[in-house]
């Protein structure tokens, strides 16, 4: 018989390395026409980080995402970066880029200020213009200012900066300290169907509400969450490297190592929890890893709700679930009160 169940999994997750320095540096070069080139040493490993980083640079310069070209991942040409690890790119590299863009922007402000007859600190960069705060009618196109900076003032608007998240070392005895600058929070809920005759578990629906601070690009955040859930489903139900008694892996191929396919994916609703982290670039934190964290917990709790068995060892394969159901049934029979 098919039995349905619901389960919830909740988690917290830090951004960046544990205590250790994990800096990023960046360079933003504003071109003569107000477009810009961003140099970053991080590596695009699929998550869309280069687009997100372009958005951060664009926001700081008041231009559009398409105005930024990103050059990445070449040790000869791009500045130091700790890399695509520890969900740190948006937060740490993003902060470095925001600072670098601000430095380039400062040159634009200093060039524009006399032209607009104000002080540099009265200016802002909005919608491809350098304009006076609270008096946006007085403005210059960013292209004009950039051209002026480079060819008249001889000050190419280039900014470089670095960022390292502040931490406090942990006490070796008690572990007390501030190992991370910030954390994100998330909850996922799963609805499953368990066949109590075969032990097979089908995840049919998942809702996921993730905090990532400001979602710099909500479409890419959704992509991370959906992908994390698929990895979580594999972890919960399918994937396991198996070894023989000599220590040789029995399933070193994708035929026998089972990972989720399109048929294993449930309907997913993703919500982004509104939040703003003042230490992140435009309030952003990160989203990469946490998406895969609470899925297995939610699914196993849903299995518990459906058939009353607690899976204590992953993955919850059909064999394991069926064995647990049988054990439970045997125990239930044993504790029936004896007839008087």
């Amino acid at each position: 018989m098919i039995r349905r169940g619901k389960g919830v999994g909740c988690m917290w997750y830090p951004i960046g390395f544990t205590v250790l320095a994990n800096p990023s540096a960046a360079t933003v070069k504003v071109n003569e026409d107000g477009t810009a080139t961003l140099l970053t040493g991080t590596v695009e490993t699929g998550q869309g980080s280069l687009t997100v980083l372009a958005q951060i640079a664009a926001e700081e310069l008041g231009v559009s995402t398409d105005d930024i070209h990103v050059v990445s991942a070449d040790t000869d040409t791009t500045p130091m970066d700790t890399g695509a690890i520890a969900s740190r790119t948006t937060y740490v590299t993003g902060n470095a880029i925001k600072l670098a863009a601000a430095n380039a922007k400062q040159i634009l402000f200093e060039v524009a200020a006399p032209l607009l007859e104000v002080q540099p600190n009265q200016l802002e960069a909005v919608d491809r213009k350098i304009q006076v705060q609270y008096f946006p009618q007085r403005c210059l196109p960013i292209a004009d200012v950039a051209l002026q900076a480079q060819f008249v003032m001889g000050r190419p608007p280039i900014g470089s900066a670095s960022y390292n998240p502040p931490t406090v070392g942990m006490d070796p005895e008690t572990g007390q300290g501030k190992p991370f600058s910030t954390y994100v929070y998330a909850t996922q809920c799963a609805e499953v169907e368990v066949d109590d005759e075969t032990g097979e578990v089908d995840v049919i629906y998942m809702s996921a509400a993730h905090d990532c601070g400001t979602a710099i690009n909500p479409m890419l955040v959704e992509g991370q969450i959906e992908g994390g859930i698929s990895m979580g489903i594999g972890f919960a139900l399918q994937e396991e490297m198996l070894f023989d008694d000599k220590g040789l892996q029995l399933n070193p191929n994708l035929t026998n190592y089972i990972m989720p396919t399109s048929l294993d994916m449930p309907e997913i609703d993703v919500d982004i929890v509104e939040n703003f982290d003042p230490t992140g670039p435009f309030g952003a934190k990160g989203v990469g890893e946490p998406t895969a964290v609470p899925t297995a917990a939610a699914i196993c709790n849903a299995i518990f709700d459906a058939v009353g068995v607690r899976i204590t060892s992953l993955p919850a394969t059909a064999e394991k679930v069926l064995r647990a159901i049988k054990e439970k049934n045997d125990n239930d029979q044993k504790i029936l009160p004896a007839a008087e």
Partner: protein
Amino acid sequence: MADEVKVADKTETVESLRKIDDNLRLPSVPEKRVFPKEIDVSAARMQTPAVGQRATRPDGRMHGLGQTKYIDDMFFPGMIHAKIKRAGIAHAKIKSIDVSEAEKMPGVMATLIGSEIPVNSFGPSLQDQPLLADDVVRHAGDGVAAVAAVTEQQALDALEKIKIVYEELPNVFDPVEAMKDDAYKIHNNESNIYASKTIMKGDVEKGFADSDFIFERTFTTQMVEHVPMEPHASIGEWDANGRVTLHSSLGRITLGRADISRTLEMPINRIRIIATVVGGNFGGKNEITTEPIVALLSKKTGRPVKCVFTREDEFISSTTRHPFVMEYKTGMSKEGKIMARKVRLICDGGAYCSWSETTLGKACILSAGPYNIENLHVDAYAVYTTKTMTGAMRGFGAPQVCFAYESHMDDMAAELGIEPLEIRLKNAFNEGSASPTGQVLEAVVVKDSLEMATERFGWKEWRK
């Protein structure tokens, strides 16, 4: 005979050399790249302010057109292919390695063994891993030798001719067994435990004494592979100035460059790493693998050398997710408030440390869950075993401990007759809560996420 030529200690006929040239299948004239001349840029990319826009990805367009150049899509003139010989034995002393027969195989241009690597060790926290094992094999996927040949198939064929004499050593597969004093010491250390972490907050014994209920449960998780769709790949090209250019699927190039500099004993400014778009990382491509090997093979042969992992290499030799043993003991008040928690984590590190220390640290800190717990004691250990080494993988121990603390939570909720959502809301962090390490937390939205996800789910109305 007159047409016999002596090449690297083997006798070749002009005929066979011609054949090698035949087999040196360089790409033909490159195909034209077809792309629409006029493509609209999506509105979201053109808008200001840029933050919050659903901006499309320029690299995404290249992926869809099939024009992204991953490492394996790059061909350089004269490029040859390297393959790695895997030990195929989990734990053994290497008595001898003989590559002479392999070197005589058709198309083979060079071989490399561990003792030829200037500093044959690496690792992010402990440098305990050889690039190619030269003394002891500690898991079956350890590389023991490399061959560079004109074609991949020739390199694979030559691997079969490498003769290695092993002396088997005792295997230790179970991390709990490995922790015992009398267990065989895989790295000749005093213990197989190579990292430990502790968190102590409040008074856990008093907390248990004050609790109405005590719950205990042990959870375990399995070893998981990252399965990036693109296997690890690198191309090394040594040049006349003693610089090496490495195209690599590495996810962290700056630190990777430092590792390569260390293993090759060469100045950092002579190493250039170019990482194109990595075809999936998930933590698995955060360490050097074949980069120093292709660099040295390129130095030996004067040619660009490419090495792409087979899917089997990917499984048996790259890092994986740590299996954990997690013992949880939690004291609860009858109202459902967590009074105290004691956790013991054993993290099966496999053959080498890799990112285990980091994983252990994060797991240790996160193991209490996003809940206010005044009295907490966590002990965590990372242990060597003679299995595939574990390393960084999406979540660094968090998916493991989350599975444990959230399963444990529902167990307790069921026992106390409290609704799962309710018991979480009762214990969840608030703004300003102190974390297990005593850090004051800001921008905390655990409860918001609980409410949002359950509302979307229709948690309260949901019926079986």
